[in-house]
């Protein structure tokens, strides 16, 4: 029985890692570009649903259409059997993945383009509305399985023996695959934020007028960051759907989108590693059912507490506190207090300065 329980935990850890990808994307948009998105759950769902619909919807009526053999040869269409032994003709998972990414890219551009040309929280409004629309449309659409969502999503053979699916034999490799995806995402985003583009995004966050005066096309940079993070959410949705074998309409709900914002805030917004660790841990707790029926309330409370008490996230003050403790343990007082005092001390003012005038104009 021991083995089963391990696998059970592993499943939830894998799911939590996929959710972490969404929070990492938000980290770029919120922590660096300074824009709030309340619709990332919808992008996750849109990615997952596109993939699920395409890979489960039978198109065998196309069997005799002239281009079908070519599509089959190119592995765009695959003939397979469903759980009951009926033969199906469906879009292959790879093709469905590409279709999902293209669709989400187009949708994110459509929402982001008008909202991001303006300053302020227009993106939050637009994405919130978008999430509600997607949620309602999924609930009303028979193609998307209405309230039941979609089940029976096939395995996705990536390469070699690597398969995205929920089968027992593939649990370990799927866990490592999810870890690899999170690590890769952290690495890529780390490269991005420590570069010309990352500095430009932070400049936009700190002062849009000044950023534009440096020649930064602020609207385009915000849009690119937003689309990139929507694509990350969609990618997570596609992997998640193949892994769990299905997806439901609650993934697009406003609660889910707010949860991602809370997760990004819990990691410290601008802190990629913090977001990856905290969102995996918190979602794992949530999926284990530790928050019981207070699940959504817990994430709401996390968001409220962080915004009011620790806008930089809980990790930074915690880290400083731990450093302080460690310093005291090693050498009483001296070294740690010196180290902490140094950056706070204001550098000598320009020239040999005496009394400094404030802001008064001459």
């Amino acid at each position, binding site marked *: 029985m021991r083995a089963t329980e391990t696998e059970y935990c592993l499943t939830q850890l894998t799911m939590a890692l996929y959710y972490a990808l969404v929070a990492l994307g938000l980290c770029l948009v919120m922590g660096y570009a300074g824009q709030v998105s309340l619709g990332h759950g919808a992008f996750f769902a849109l990615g997952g649903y596109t993939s699920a619909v395409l890979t489960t919807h039978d198109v065998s009526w196309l069997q005799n259409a002239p281009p079908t053999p070519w599509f089959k040869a190119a592995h765009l269409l695959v003939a397979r059997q469903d759980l009951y032994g009926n033969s199906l003709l469906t879009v292959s998972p790879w093709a469905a993945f590409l279709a999902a990414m293209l669709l989400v890219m187009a949708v994110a551009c459509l929402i982001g383009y008008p909202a991001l040309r303006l300053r302020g929280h227009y993106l939050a409004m637009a994405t919130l509305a978008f999430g509600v629309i997607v949620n309602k449309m999924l609930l009303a659409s028979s193609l998307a399985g209405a309230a039941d969502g979609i089940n029976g999503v096939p395995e996705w053979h990536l390469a070699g023996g690597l398969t995205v699916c929920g089968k027992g034999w593939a649990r370990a490799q799927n866990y490592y695959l999810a870890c690899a995806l999170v690590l890769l995402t952290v690495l*890529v985003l780390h490269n991005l934020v420590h570069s*010309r583009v990352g500095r430009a995004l932070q400049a936009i966050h*700190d002062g849009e*007028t000044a950023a*534009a*005066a440096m020649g930064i096309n602020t609207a385009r940079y915000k849009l690119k960051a937003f689309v*990139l993070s929507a694509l990350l959410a969609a990618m997570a949705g596609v992997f998640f759907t193949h892994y769990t074998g299905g997806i439901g309409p609650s993934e697009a709900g406003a609660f889910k989108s707010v949860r991602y914002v809370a997760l990004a805030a819990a990691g410290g917004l601008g802190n990629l590693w913090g977001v990856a660790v905290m969102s995996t841990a918190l979602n794992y707790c949530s999926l284990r059912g530790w928050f019981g029926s207070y699940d959504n309330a817990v994430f709401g409370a996390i968001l409220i507490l962080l915004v009011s008490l620790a806008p930089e996230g809980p990790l930074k003050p915690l880290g400083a506190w731990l450093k302080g403790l460690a310093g005291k343990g090693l050498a009483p007082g001296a070294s740690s207090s010196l180290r902490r005092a140094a950056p706070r001390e204001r550098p000598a003012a320009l020239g040999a300065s005496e009394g400094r005038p404030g802001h008064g104009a001459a």
Partner: protein
Amino acid sequence: MALLEVTNLRRSFGGLVAVQQVSFAVKAGQIKAIIGPNGAGKTTLFNLICGLLKPETGQISFRGESLSGLEPYRVAQAGVSRTFQNPSLFPRLSVLENVMVGRHRRTCREFFACAFRWPGQAREERAIRQAALAQLEYIGLAYLAAYPAGGLAFGQRRMVELGRALAAEPEMLLLDEPASGLNTREKEELGELIRKIRQRGITILLVEHDMSLVMGLSDEILVMNNGMPIAEGPPAMVQNDPKVIGVYLGVTKE
């Protein structure tokens, strides 16, 4: 030939005409100042040139190309850098990173190249860092490179902002009241620095209240009042213009 040429510019806000019938030219290599009492339309004129406001009528041409109606980032890319009356550094970036943002116009790697460390990206990044450090040394603040820009004193912020604008290697520099909030010693240093910048071949247009700085520094002065130019010429000539004296001392024409 004139580097910047402004012809018959007009802009109003509701019923208030902030700028009208403004025409002037700035020659390459010149230091030109715009002065005038509060509400004369200097800042509006500045914002029209750098694209923050759109003119209702009139033309702005820079190096023979039209700037009117362009977005601010396009104006910056065309080679016009500016500083703000209230130094607007990016407070969460370090001083060095602030100046590195100034290199944006001179560099080209975009999202894909930066995310995947495409060949050449690391080299460009090193070049940006070196150029920014050189710029900080030029303005004498290299020792502040690692400090967060949010923690600087007012005068330092202004100098770093100037360094950031210079990092773009602009053809023309717009300075919006560069001496406001500076003490006497800092004003002198600023004057020296502006002269040095001009010697690098950068044309300078500034709005300024501080008369001693403007008179000592500028090759030409444009005096504005009520949204219209009332005098233009070398400092000595402008100083003795009866209309200018009238505006500044409140003498009415009889």
